[in-house]
């Protein structure tokens, strides 16, 4: 149970990092969590977040799975490709839906990470209740989601994001590398 809770916590941490503008509290947690990460001043971090993850612009690394997995015909970029519908269906089957008023393009990185947090939390919950069959099932969902949805585009996204230089963006590079390594270890662990 400790393990699933710890993993949930890491996914939540990453969802915030890639889905919300930085705050002093978040940056404090980043320093403590990601070894070697050196934060830049907050306003530079906010701008870096906006340039890299909100866009538009030359440095924009759109954090949407379908832009990598289903580049639509003739390479014309479009949000909400097939991958988005697929993950949204999985969210529903796992008993959650995107909260009202929240950004609702389903395959945003932050949503996929938050979804993993939810699945890990449900696993922990089943373990607490001693329902090992359920725990196995939640774990199976994680395995499938990692394999079919989160992992397939993550290296490409991280490569695109990492193609930047200055200090504020170095923080996002560090976070991205940390995420990539963690998710990779997750994939390995799920076999």
């Amino acid at each position, binding site marked *: 149970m400790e393990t699933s809770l710890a993993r949930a916590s890491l996914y939540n941490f990453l969802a*915030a990092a890639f889905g919300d503008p930085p705050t002093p509290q978040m940056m404090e947690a980043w320093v403590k969590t990601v070894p070697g990460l050196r934060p830049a001043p907050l306003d530079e971090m906010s701008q870096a977040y*906006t340039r890299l993850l909100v866009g538009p612009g030359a440095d924009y690394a759109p954090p949407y799975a379908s832009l990598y997995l289903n580049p639509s015909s003739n390479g014309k*970029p479009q949000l909400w490709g097939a991958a988005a519908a697929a993950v949204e269906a999985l969210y529903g089957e796992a008993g959650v839906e995107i909260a009202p008023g929240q950004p609702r393009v389903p395959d945003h990185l932050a949503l996929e990470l938050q979804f993993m947090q939810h699945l890990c939390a449900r696993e922990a919950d089943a373990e607490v209740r001693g329902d090992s069959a359920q725990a196995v099932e939640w774990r199976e969902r994680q395995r499938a989601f990692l394999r079919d949805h989160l992992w397939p585009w993550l290296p490409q996204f991280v490569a695109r994001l990492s193609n930047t230089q200055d200090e504020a963006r170095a923080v996002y590079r560090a976070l991205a590398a940390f995420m990539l*390594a963690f998710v990779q270890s997750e994939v390995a662990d799920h076999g």
Partner: protein
Amino acid sequence: MTTTFTRRDFLKLAGAAGAVALGTRFVAAKNGRAAAPSLASRAAGQTAGNWIATACNMCGGQTGVLVRVDEGRVAKIEPNPDNPIGVANVSTDFWRWKNTDGAAMCPKGNAGPMALYDPDRVKTPLKRTNPEKGKGVDPGWAAISWDEALNTIAAKLRDLRDAGEAHKLVWFSEDHSFVDIQKDFTELYGTPNYHNHSNLCDVARKASFKLVVGDERPLGDFANARHILLFGWNPLSATKWSHLPRIFTRAIENGAKLVVVDPYLSQTAARAHEWIPLRPATDGALALALAHLLIKWNLYDQEFVNNWTTGFDDFAAFVADKTPEWAEQITDVPAATIRRMARDMANLRPAVVDVWSGPGQHSNAVQGGRAIAILNALLGNVDRPGGLINPERKGPARQKPHGPKIAQPRLDNLNLYPFGHGSGVYTEVLQSIVDGTAAYMPKIGMVIFQNLVLSVPGTDNVIEALKKLEFLVVVDTMLSETAEMADIVIPGTTYLERYDLTTNWVTWTSVSLRQPAVEPIFGQLPEYEFVVEVARRMGLKDADDKDFFTVGRISGQPVDSTQAWYEEYLSEQLLKGGPKISLDDLKALPGAVWIDPKGTRYEKFKDEVHLPDGAQTKTGYAIVKSADGKTILGFKDDRGAAHKPDGSALDVPADAKMDDKVQQIILDKDGKLWGYVDAKGILKGADGSEKGFRRDGKFLKGWSTPSRLIEFTSAQAAARKDRNGNAIDAQPVYTPRDWFPNADFPLYLINWKESSHTHSRTFNNPWLIELMGWNRLAINSVTAARLGLKDGDEIWVESPYGKAKALARVTQGIHPEVVGWQHGFGHWGLGHIAKGKGTADGSFNKTISDPISGMALHKEVCVKVYRV
């Protein structure tokens, strides 16, 4: 970063990661999905797709569309045959063709999903961090929360108002989308400075037609015409009206002749029987010569002219010397051609003549437009089949809120434009900010769904004006060149994510619903809810200190959700307007459109105006008016006793005006004032509004002009001065425009629109950029040879106001003295696809408007062109 982690490292680090608050991105699923089904039972049950009826808004055409939504995603868009807009503009055609031909939409309508799912969209409120503003200067955007954005805006607006400077808010908006709620806001807030897009579009046409036939936007019944003459209009491929190409096709199949007058061989001119190239802005002179011939040859409709018009004799005398030879000198159209045109249009009846923004965006547009409108009267073809129809518009009814009295003048001096439009005068307000000649300097700017920098003439001026505002908010789906100047940018919605009621472009009333096909995809507030939310956070109330933006307009109860509040607001407009149904009723109608079953009615000018039952007609009475003559205070009976309109006794103020020339006073059965007949036989209501005129003992509706007749000669025009203090001629004179080619700038520069793009806003849409990806400058082959230019050459285009590179397109399809291109290109913002494609036409212009209507002059430019 090269550190490698073991699995155990990660799990240890989770402790520190736990300091981040739990994300609120998800909630428990509704619809009984909360209990997670087991993986084995995963429903292959793809949710069945839905077709949602709504109205397109890729441009202002409002075409009815059906949007296919599969699993929450807009998959495709099809035309909606239950909505007249997209089928036909006359009801009989609509009822027939909806079942035979179905409906149509244009390329932009098809490209709607690409606008919705554009990755370059503004996704969250953004705050500027770089205080320096300028063209191409990086604003240093930082994403901020909705709360921060809304609270900042509300606080700035509250402070300005509390300081007694509410009038220093200037507001710019689109003209077909969520207009009413913005007007409500500005009126309740207390600024006179609300403007919208129309004065960049067709307000010169509006003034012309209003002066002649009493309607701002008559529409041609082209399908039933046998001769169609168009001046400077490209209906087969302009921005709007997906049903026009089929209407014109049908007319031509039925044997109609199509003649297009335009300096440029537009898509429509290319498909016409005849293309008449002419010098820009001389269309009015051509129309006068045609009128001259119709009258001289006695080919005009005498019955119609005698019965339904006024001022013909003076007009006939005025055009007596407007010979084809006179017009040839001005227009460059051969006199023999003009004679043939006149003969054709007289022989092939019904004949219709129309004009839009080609000649409409020059300094002499209004009078030229009048000359063109008048041709329809000579042909006896106004509000008749195959002619120019004054549409009926009994749509939703805006309920004006009760705002504070506003003492300060408008910055755009709209009252000095004698036939200006409620949309204001963009150029004057912006230029006066730059010059420092404004009556007062505005402080806060609100720009919703407008890219002023690329669409108002004189790009550099517009940027300077926006820089002078202390605080600028821009609401848009894209980071436009105007958003680049903002302090805060708010993400807008595409039409697929929001509501609106639309009522345009057909000749009888139909009201269609634009409704969200999907929820706003970034969780953003639609523009109307943004306005409501800002008002709420400011605590904005009406002049009676009553809540407006928090209380349901029908229920009178507090409504928490801004969406629910707005739905009630729309419902009220429907219930109190023509349809008399609720929003839910409208949603349930086929195609989500309410159609007045009466359909198109021709010859509405013959409608009889009936007096109320038991009406009493009095003679020897007088009307009592306020000192300025504008308000009716009551009436005086034949014994000298004065009464208020409700019949009770009136204390006549010393300075009141007594109108005893009125022919009759009409009281209802209870003795209350219902209306009166003025000295000229015009029937007016108790508030002085014109209702009709007396003929043969009856009251007929006529036209909405002061004489209730079509006006060849305009006494109301002659009674006014233009913005520059110059007299306006009662006749539709041809006046040379202000700016002509000279030795330094020898070529006219014009611009146009095509169905591939809307204004300056669709240029990041990959499908549309594929259709039209660059606006090369069209140059006549003779001119190009003289200048030593070849097709595809890189060239400089230069005016006294701007200079930029372009690519040459050498063609025979443009008048030799003219060069021109498609509007809307030349972005340095907007998105990665739009950026750097083509040339922006506005930068060559001066920031000025026509002095009669306030119409922005997009086409009054001269340039020189030379190789790079």
